[in-house]
């Protein structure tokens, strides 16, 4: 009996519920001691986060592995409207992703949050971080659209407050407001879509597939696609990302970039895979959006010198990669090629998971770098590999993984997508095949540029000699800020090497290379080469300096800068960056031969901001001003408006009936 009770309690539903409760408790704890600067409370709270993450990771791993569905209902407001949750395989995968990343982010935060100066703000940071993660978990496990939109909003709100952490800076306020406007816009689209869905099938259930009227499904798809794209940062809805991610604290940018944009991807997958009936052109739309985001994202990342903004653009690129996989799934499944479709979907899911891991790794380590050097500008860094070795190694593994180098995890997802692309000659429609080839070539370019981008990032931040005094004085961060990223870095390696085994254990027979074997082979060949060279060399050590163009002292000014590295590409892709060059020269003489002084500047125009966002903002502003004229402050005017409204209402009543 006792044993039965025990097993009854230990049931997965209860474990899942316990995990949620633990998150909630952990998040409320710092609020209790909000005005006291108690390290202990924050640490206990972060510890609870870590334990809850482990618990939820276990539950979701089990659910995903065994392919079982967990369903719980927490609170019923009305028969149709209730907070109920379920974990099927898709949800479990995302809950696992969130749990793993938040485990590491919680460990990292133990050290990171303490470097602030405002005690209330530090407590709020910890608390809101908990609510933010809890909301994300609840969004991806929502069983109905009501719960989905509710927690979607709590997620948006808590992340908005987190972005505003350093609200006294003008830049942060701009980022926060921008983010808030965009995220609310996304909610507008989602709510509209959900209302239309409800009108079609009379149910809030997220998996409901019986449609009374399928003609509106296209509208639902477009609404959902735009709504989720805004949140995921798909170009051209991406503009909030490069503002909000650098402005927020680094542990939060890791969560936002690693997880929150994946929640939007989850939403897209949930509805496309389970609720709606996709058509071929939906797939083409998703694929095109993905390719555009991937290529433009990485091109923008290439020229960026703000470390965190570079990572934000890189997130846009990776979201593009995931969308490409999803688009391929839709196209192939509509063209009767299920095996290729599964390949694309597996690639998308695996890449989404891996991106969560290595992007949070990169954001956390770059947070450590910013913490130590006090700047986000990579031109002012350099030589940090000697000063922060552990951070450097973690960042390096993340950079390798994001550049899709075997045998790390980033390689596998992109490989599957490539595989799916390469087999697309099986498609019957020649135009579709042409599209596939075009997309494939752009996609290949993306991968190459991503590698170049991270060569630039790693090289300029960690290698060579420091360029500024701040970088010179940098030192390794506290232990917890090393431990969190190290776990993620280890995961990058493990997920890459054992990818084939992982797919197999989940029951997918996917033709991916056995990276374990390749990894062993690579290591063996490196070791062999090293041993041969070592044996063959004379053993003499010669220490000399690199030739510095004849300049005697070699310092940071002699180095290849990040801008210099990106320069050829910036010049080649001038049309995309829309660079504007201006130069002014003054001379001593009238023949313009003796140079006096000059000024040259190169400005990168922000295409989307100047041609899409600002015109809309200006139009809204004009409309608001026109509406604001109505507010005169005179009571008579207001009553006159009411009068007019009533008369109009009367006319409408007379007109309709």
């Amino acid at each position, binding site marked *: 009996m006792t044993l039965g009770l025990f097993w009854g309690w230990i049931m997965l539903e209860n474990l899942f519920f316990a995990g949620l409760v633990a998150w909630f408790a952990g998040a409320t704890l710092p609020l209790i001691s909000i005005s006291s600067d108690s390290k202990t409370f924050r640490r206990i709270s972060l510890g609870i986060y870590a334990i809850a993450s482990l618990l939820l990771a276990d539950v979701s791993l089990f659910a995903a592995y065994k392919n079982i569905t967990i369903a719980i209902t927490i609170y019923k407001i009305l028969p149709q409207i209730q907070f109920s949750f379920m974990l099927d395989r898709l949800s479990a995968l995302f809950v696992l992703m969130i749990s793993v990343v938040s485990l590491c982010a919680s460990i990292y935060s133990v050290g990171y949050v303490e470097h602030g100066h405002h005690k209330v703000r530090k407590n709020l940071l910890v608390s809101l971080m908990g609510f933010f993660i809890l909301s994300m978990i609840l969004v991806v496990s929502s069983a109905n659209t009501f719960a989905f939109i509710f927690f979607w909003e709590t997620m948006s709100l808590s992340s908005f407050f987190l972005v505003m952490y350093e609200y006294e800076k003008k830049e942060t306020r701009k980022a926060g407001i921008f983010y808030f406007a965009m995220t609310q816009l996304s909610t507008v689209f989602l709510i509209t879509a959900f209302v239309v869905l409800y009108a079609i099938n009379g149910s809030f259930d997220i998996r409901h597939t019986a449609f009374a009227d399928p003609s509106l499904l296209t509208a639902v798809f477009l609404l959902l696609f735009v709504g989720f794209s805004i949140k995921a940062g798909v170009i051209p809805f991406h503009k909030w990302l490069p503002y909000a991610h650098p402005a927020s604290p680094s542990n939060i940018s890791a969560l936002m970039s690693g997880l929150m944009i994946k929640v939007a991807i989850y939403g897209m997958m949930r509805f496309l895979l389970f609720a709606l009936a996709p058509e071929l052109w939906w797939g083409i739309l998703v694929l095109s959006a993905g390719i555009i985001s991937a290529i433009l994202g990485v091109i923008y990342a290439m020229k960026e010198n703000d470390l965190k903004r570079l990572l934000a653009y890189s997130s846009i690129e990776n979201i593009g990669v995931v969308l490409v996989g999803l688009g391929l799934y839709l196209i192939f499944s509509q063209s009767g090629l299920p095996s290729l479709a599964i390949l694309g979907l597996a690639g998308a899911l695996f890449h989404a998971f891996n991106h969560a891991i290595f992007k949070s790794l990169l954001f956390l380590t770059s947070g450590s770098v910013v913490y130590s050097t006090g700047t986000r500008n990579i031109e002012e860094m350099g030589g940090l590999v000697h000063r922060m070795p552990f951070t450097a190694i973690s960042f390096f593994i993340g950079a390798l993984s994001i550049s899709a180098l075997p045998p790390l995890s980033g390689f596998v997802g992109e490989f599957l997508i490539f595989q799916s692309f390469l087999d697309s000659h099986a498609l019957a429609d020649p135009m579709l095949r042409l599209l596939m080839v075009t997309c494939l070539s752009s996609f290949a370019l993306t991968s190459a540029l991503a590698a170049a981008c991270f060569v630039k990032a790693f090289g300029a931040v960690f290698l060579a000699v420091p360029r500024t005094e701040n970088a010179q004085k940098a030192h390794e961060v506290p232990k917890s800020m090393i431990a969190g990223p190290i776990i993620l870095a280890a995961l990058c390696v493990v997920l890459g090497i054992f990818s084939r085994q992982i797919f197999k254990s989940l029951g997918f027979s996917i033709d991916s290379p056995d990276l374990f074997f390749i990894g062993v082979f690579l290591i063996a060949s490196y070791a062999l080469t090293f041993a041969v060279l070592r044996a063959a060399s004379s053993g003499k050590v010669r220490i000399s300096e690199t030739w510095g163009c004849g300049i005697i002292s070699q310092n940071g000014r002699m180095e290849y800068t990040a801008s210099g590295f990106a320069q050829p590409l910036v010049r080649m892709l001038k049309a995309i960056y829309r660079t504007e060059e201006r130069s002014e020269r003054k001379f001593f003489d009238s023949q313009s031969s003796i140079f006096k002084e000059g000024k040259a500047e190169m400005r990168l125009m922000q295409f989307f901001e100047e041609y899409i966002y600002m015109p809309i903002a200006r139009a809204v502003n004009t409309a608001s001003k026109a509406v604001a004229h109505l507010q005169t402050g005179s*009571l*008579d*005017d207001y*009553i*006159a408006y*009411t*009068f007019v409204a*009533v*008369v109009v209402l*009367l*006319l409408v*009543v*007379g*007109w309709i*009936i």
Partner: protein
Amino acid sequence: MEFLVEGWINVLLALVLISGAFIVTRRDLLALVSTYSIQSFLISAVALSLYLIEKHNVLLYLAILTVASKSLLIPYFIRTIQRKMRIRRDLEFHYITPIISIFVTLILTLVAYICLSKALTASSAQNDFYLGAVLGVSLALMGMMVIFSRRKVITKIVGYLMMENGVLLFGMFLTELPFIVEAMIVIDLIILVLIAAILAVGMDASIEEFQARLNVAHKWFTQEKEDDEI
């Protein structure tokens, strides 16, 4: 008998409409209040006539309440306020002058009649005199027009009261407003007029001048209080 009463009600309603038009156009403040008093009396007569047909006790209570509050008590209060004021006539207007407003009233009544006759015949065919409901809506709209087109606070109050009369009329003919709601509205009105009476010293001209006068009144009140204490 019923036929006679229906005809009688129609006559009363026509009189109510005339009184409404009178309020919209008159500038003499005292006449406005008297007209309001008469209008309320006419409405209570309508309620009484309806009682003869429908035999609902509520209508009887309504008639009594209306006469007591709207044609006696509230006009009494307003006259008290007016006695304290220097101004007897309304000279400033917003948007529309009285001459135009009488035309607007005509159009409004017509619009309400056309629109509502369509709506009401479609929804409830058994109710024959929607004329009452139409007049109720028109009266409410006319009251609103008075509120936003006149500057003097007293006129605005009369406009508000006329609006309420319109609502009452509409309720009597169409929706059967529960008695408790009607009673509450009357209490609201009395409180409104009372507050107006208290503030009257500062408000005898218009809202724009109110602030300055309120300060003076405040001093006056506090002085009086001090005098009492002495």
